[in-house]
């Protein structure tokens, strides 16, 4: 690149450098995305796999964080597939690769050969947007059922009870005539059947595709372990099974007790969160993000706020969040992390067969933290606390209950004392207690060590994130790799473990809770110093002016990297709102991890990934 003077100028910026390199290597196929507010490169679909390979192999963009499609109906009439790729574990900003395809015959090459982590994400884009991916080995619907008519995230698709493209709906005011949604005919024009559909000819697609590749009853004895008579069997674990943490199904092909193949089946909780998000205004999405991973609503809020703040920063009158707001945000997010990891550890024990007793001990401290959330944000789990440019309200002076009746029990403590007690006394003690009783417990050691191993290169390839990635020996944490908020000034280490098994994922969560407590301890003096400072920048507007452009806001959620890809067309509502959910993408690696283990181990492996179905299915 020495002969190219332009490249030398831009060496300070790794992404610009990478773009220049790709442009030099593929002069015909790579164009920079010059739309206002957009970044990255637009690649000719024919060369997409080659460009992706070059980006991975020569430039080091080995981690596909998010792959999603945008429907630009009426704005060029094409679908655009957007890939956010990162260097792992080096860190830094993303190289955004885009490829376009016409809406009527949407086809793109699959990048699964470059980044296997694209598997579920391409299936999702196929399912919801209707883009075919050539070369994808298993291209079928993932969240909706086979036979569903249409692709819901297309802009011209309308849901049942469809009222209007965008909120607020005109029927609410000034002439708001109330009705119940169910009262309107649910079988009216909003339910669409495939063209030429008649009930008489209808045969359900059924489950057959899930069992493809399983030769039931053929050569069973040959396949079996010598000397031991085993049968091949397909078992459905779930959707209603306590080990699945919700409604989630695993189609497991067994040879005897040993797993030969595992396919996750999901979508039982699918509510088309992203479509709802496009109907909503920017602010209205905030409470909806609470409902993704309902254990960690505070950090879900933060990711979305970061994405929209990035968009707002493209405008003229943007003010970044105040310092106090950032301190409070980090406080909330780290408390959430402790809650989530406690929960994960408690329920891992559940999965190992120690039903509920240890889980309840593990989540005891959560009560105190949720009480704090309730006093500050107004709700224990659905916090809806962050706002663009700050937070909803400052910490109250006291954590105080207001009694209404004689049998109401009142708590009344100064907020900072209460917090200091949690952070300095209770949490460290609780973590030590868990560590003390669990780490050397022989049941945990024998059940967890060496089970569900995910090697580091595979973890990166499968886009695993969070504890799953770091327990495999990849020290990658968004808080350090691409810092946001006040993390640069905070002193903490990225927890990392090297064996990549269940046991290390458990240990890593303990480590990470200790680091969170370390961060929280640094926040207490900052909270005292910033007392009385504003908690939101600018004025609080319910309809902020969001300039045109795209933004990818990502945070290190307890479950992994949570990203929001938000596209604005300058209107009141996001044009595209996509959630890169860590639970969902971490499941890509579940099949490979489970292979060769026993049935009982799958439950523990799934527990160690720590999924939340609200986030998996969205």
């Amino acid at each position, binding site marked *: 690149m020495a002969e190219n003077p332009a490249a030398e100028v831009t060496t300070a910026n790794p992404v610009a450098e990478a773009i220049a390199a790709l442009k030099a290597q593929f002069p015909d196929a790579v164009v920079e995305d010059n739309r206002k507010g957009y970044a990255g490169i637009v690649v000719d679909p024919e060369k997409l796999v080659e460009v992706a390979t070059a980006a991975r192999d020569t430039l080091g963009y080995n981690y596909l964080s998010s792959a999603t499609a945008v429907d630009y109906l009426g704005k060029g009439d094409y679908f655009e597939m957007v890939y956010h790729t990162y260097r792992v574990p080096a860190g830094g900003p993303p190289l955004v690769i885009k490829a376009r395809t016409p809406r009527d015959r949407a086809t793109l090459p699959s990048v699964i050969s470059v980044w296997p982590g694209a598997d579920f994400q391409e299936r999702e884009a196929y399912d919801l947007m209707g883009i075919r991916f050539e070369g994808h080995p298993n291209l079928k619907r993932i969240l909706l059922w086979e036979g569903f008519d249409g692709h819901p995230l297309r802009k011209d698709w309308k849901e049942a009870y469809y009222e209007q493209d965008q909120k607020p709906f005109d029927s609410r005011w000034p*002439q708001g005539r109330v009705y119940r949604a169910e009262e309107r005919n649910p079988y009216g024009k909003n339910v669409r059947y495939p063209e030429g559909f008649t009930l008489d000819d209808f045969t359900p697609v059924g489950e057959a595709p899930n069992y493809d590749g399983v030769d039931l009853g053929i050569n069973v004895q040959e396949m079996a372990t010598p000397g031991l008579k085993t049968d091949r069997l397909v078992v459905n674990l779930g959707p209603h099974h306590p080990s699945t943490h919700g409604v989630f199904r695993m189609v497991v092909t067994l040879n005897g007790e040993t797993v030969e193949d595992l396919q996750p089946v999901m979508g039982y909780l699918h509510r088309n969160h992203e479509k709802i998000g496009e109907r909503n205004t920017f602010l209205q999405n905030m409470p909806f993000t609470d409902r993704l991973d309902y254990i960690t609503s505070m950090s879900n809020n933060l990711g979305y706020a970061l994405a929209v703040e990035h968009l707002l920063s493209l405008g003229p009158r943007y003010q970044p969040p105040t310092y106090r707001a950032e301190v409070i945000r980090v406080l909330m997010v780290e408390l959430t992390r402790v809650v989530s990891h406690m929960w994960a550890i408690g329920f891992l024990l559940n999965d190992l067969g120690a039903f509920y007793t240890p889980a309840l001990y593990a989540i005891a401290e959560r009560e105190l933290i949720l009480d704090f959330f309730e006093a500050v944000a107004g709700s224990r789990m659905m916090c809806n606390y962050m706002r663009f440019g700050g937070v909803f309200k400052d910490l*109250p002076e006291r954590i105080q209950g207001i009694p209404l009746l004689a049998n*109401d029990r009142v708590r009344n403590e100064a907020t900072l004392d209460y917090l200091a007690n949690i952070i300095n006394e209770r949490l460290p003690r609780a973590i030590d207690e868990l560590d003390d009783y669990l780490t050397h417990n022989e049941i945990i050691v024998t059940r967890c060590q060496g089970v569900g191993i995910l090697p580091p290169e595979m973890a990166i390839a499968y886009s695993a994130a969070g504890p799953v990635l770091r327990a495999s020996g990849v020290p990658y944490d968004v808080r350090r790799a691409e810092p946001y908020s006040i993390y640069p000034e905070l002193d903490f280490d990225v927890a990392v473990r090297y064996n990549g098994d269940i046991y290390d994922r458990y240990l890593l969560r303990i480590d990470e809770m200790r680091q969170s407590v370390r961060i929280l301890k640094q926040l207490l003096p900052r909270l005292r110093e910033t007392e009385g400072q504003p908690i939101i920048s600018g004025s609080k507007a319910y309809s902020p002016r969001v300039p045109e452009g795209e933004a990818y806001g990502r945070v290190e959620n307890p479950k992994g990297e949570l990203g929001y890809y938000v596209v604005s067309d300058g209107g009141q509502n996001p044009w595209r709102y996509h959630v890169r959910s860590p639970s969902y993408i971490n499941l890509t690696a579940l099949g490979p991890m489970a292979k060769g283990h026993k049935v009982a181990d799958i439950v523990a492996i799934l527990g160690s990934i720590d999924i939340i179905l609200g986030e998996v299915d969205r």
Partner: protein
Amino acid sequence: MYGLGILKGMGVTLKHFLDTYIEDLRFLGKGKRTDVAFNLRQGGRNQRLGLFTVEYPEEKIAVPERFRFIPFLVINNLDAEEDAGKIWCTSCGICAKVCPPQCIWIVRGTDPETGRPKPEPEEFYIDIDICMNCGLCAEFCPFDAIKMDHDYELASYDRTTHHIFDKARLSKEFRYWRSIAPTISAEEAEARGGWEHKDVLKEKAKASRAADKAAGAS
């Protein structure tokens, strides 16, 4: 050695089990259901414990001020000297516009004589089956007229007839808001410049200015 870990684990359970009885003994005769006992049980300051069980409905945790559940509409106290029971809502429609699940319906009032809109809702509905308790309506109401309630015991036998709240069902006196949120209501009153509705205060300020002017002119 195998078995030690199990014994250790069982020991934790046993300890927690015994602790519950020790707690009972501590409050023997003094009554377990006092605020002091409650705070100790709930892992208050310097407490090792945290036996978080609350014996609902014999006792309940008082919710904090900011707790939010289903909105209600503020009206003047029914024994007020002026405008008793007057609704604070001006039917500006911001709550309906900001509501994420769109569960608020408002019919703006019109003056029967002139036919022009008047600042009072004719009807106001909230479908509490749809409401997601996010609190945005209360947050963005410029007149402090819609507030989040603390009453979470709303179970009923028939949701089709009971779960759309109308204006009458939603209205609660201002003194109720003051009682459930003493600090917040005081802050809001300070921001408005008095305990009355924003418009009333504006009128008063206008009247006093006019009076001053008249006094100055004469």
